[in-house]
């Protein structure tokens, strides 16, 4: 190999390093949720349930790695990459899953800020950064600011149905039944996953970032909130069907409707890049 060829193809490229780092940190970040899923449902049921991890996150992981695979493999490591790698591997050794999610945030931020605009490394880093929102930061935000966030859901439901609410508690018309919006029923969880899907589609198919793209993201978020508000409203309106709507068929209807809306909005926003000349 000539000196020039060796310079063109470094032993380990940035894309290769971050491919490994992103994979390790993401799978480690999943471990906490997966362990709870296996503990609660057993291996077979947990596997069918994707270990309690949304299919959007698994698809985003695949999309991020696919984008990194597009790299031409010529960019050598830069100062700071090794420090980030050591930090991430140390976090992976800790028996606390969120540590890996924090390290993934640091690694994806570093990669997004230092990679060339439009490069596979920057595009993949954006996908993984969005994933940390769903794995850790969205949950932390909900835990830390649960009161105002749950109140917002209650305000939307009360406003839609024209009923009274106090904090995250809503009363049906006439006050016959009441409902408390719990963190698990917050729109926040779905919103963070909608952002991951939007980021994955836009980066995988190289959709230019701009106001138009942001508007489609906001539309996907609005659809997520609207369907969740309708679901909570239905529980209040038909209290006799509350268990079915909360964790029975109603939950599946809400989940698939939200998913269809988010996928449709994101794909419509990226239709030129995804489908070509549609």
């Amino acid at each position: 190999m000539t000196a020039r060829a060796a310079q063109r193809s470094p032993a380990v490229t940035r894309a290769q390093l971050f491919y490994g780092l992103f994979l390790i940190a993401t799978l480690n970040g999943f471990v906490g949720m997966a362990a709870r899923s296996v503990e609660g449902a057993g291996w077979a049921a947990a596997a069918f349930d994707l270990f309690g991890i949304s299919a959007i996150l698994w698809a985003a992981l695949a999309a991020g790695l696919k984008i990194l695979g597009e790299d031409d493999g010529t960019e050598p490591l830069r100062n700071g990459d090794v420090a980030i790698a050591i930090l991430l591997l140390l976090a992976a050794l800790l028996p606390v899953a969120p540590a890996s999610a924090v390290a993934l945030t640091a690694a994806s931020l570093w990669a997004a800020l230092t990679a060339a605009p439009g490069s596979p490394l920057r595009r993949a880093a954006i996908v993984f950064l969005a994933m940390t929102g769903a794995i850790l930061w969205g949950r932390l935000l909900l835990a830390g600011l649960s009161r105002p966030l749950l109140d917002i859901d209650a305000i939307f439901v009360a406003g839609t149905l024209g009923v009274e609410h106090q904090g995250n508690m809503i009363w049906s018309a006439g006050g016959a039944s009441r409902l408390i919006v719990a963190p698990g029923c917050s729109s926040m969880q779905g919103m963070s996953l909608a952002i991951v899907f939007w980021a994955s589609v836009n980066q995988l198919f190289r959709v230019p970032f701009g106001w138009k793209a942001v508007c489609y993201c906001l539309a996907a978020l609005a659809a997520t909130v609207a369907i969740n508000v309708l679901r909570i409203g239905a529980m209040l309106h038909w209290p006799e069907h509350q268990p079915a709507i909360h964790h029975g068929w109603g939950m599946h209807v809400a989940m698939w409707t939200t998913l269809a809306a988010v996928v449709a909005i994101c794909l419509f926003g990226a239709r030129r890049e995804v489908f070509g000349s549609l």
Partner: protein
Amino acid sequence: MRQLSAFASLTGLSFLVADPALAGNTVPGPLLAAGAPVLAVFAAGYYLVRRRRRG
């Protein structure tokens, strides 16, 4: 305490919960795109898009 419990159950940091009555509480609720069938739909959709783009 409730706030701490919610934080712990959401992040997996169960050792933060001091009150045994609240320990181990998980937050039930629907998860967007839960289950293997959704992943299968995604895979099929991506395959169709790639086929269309190549064809």
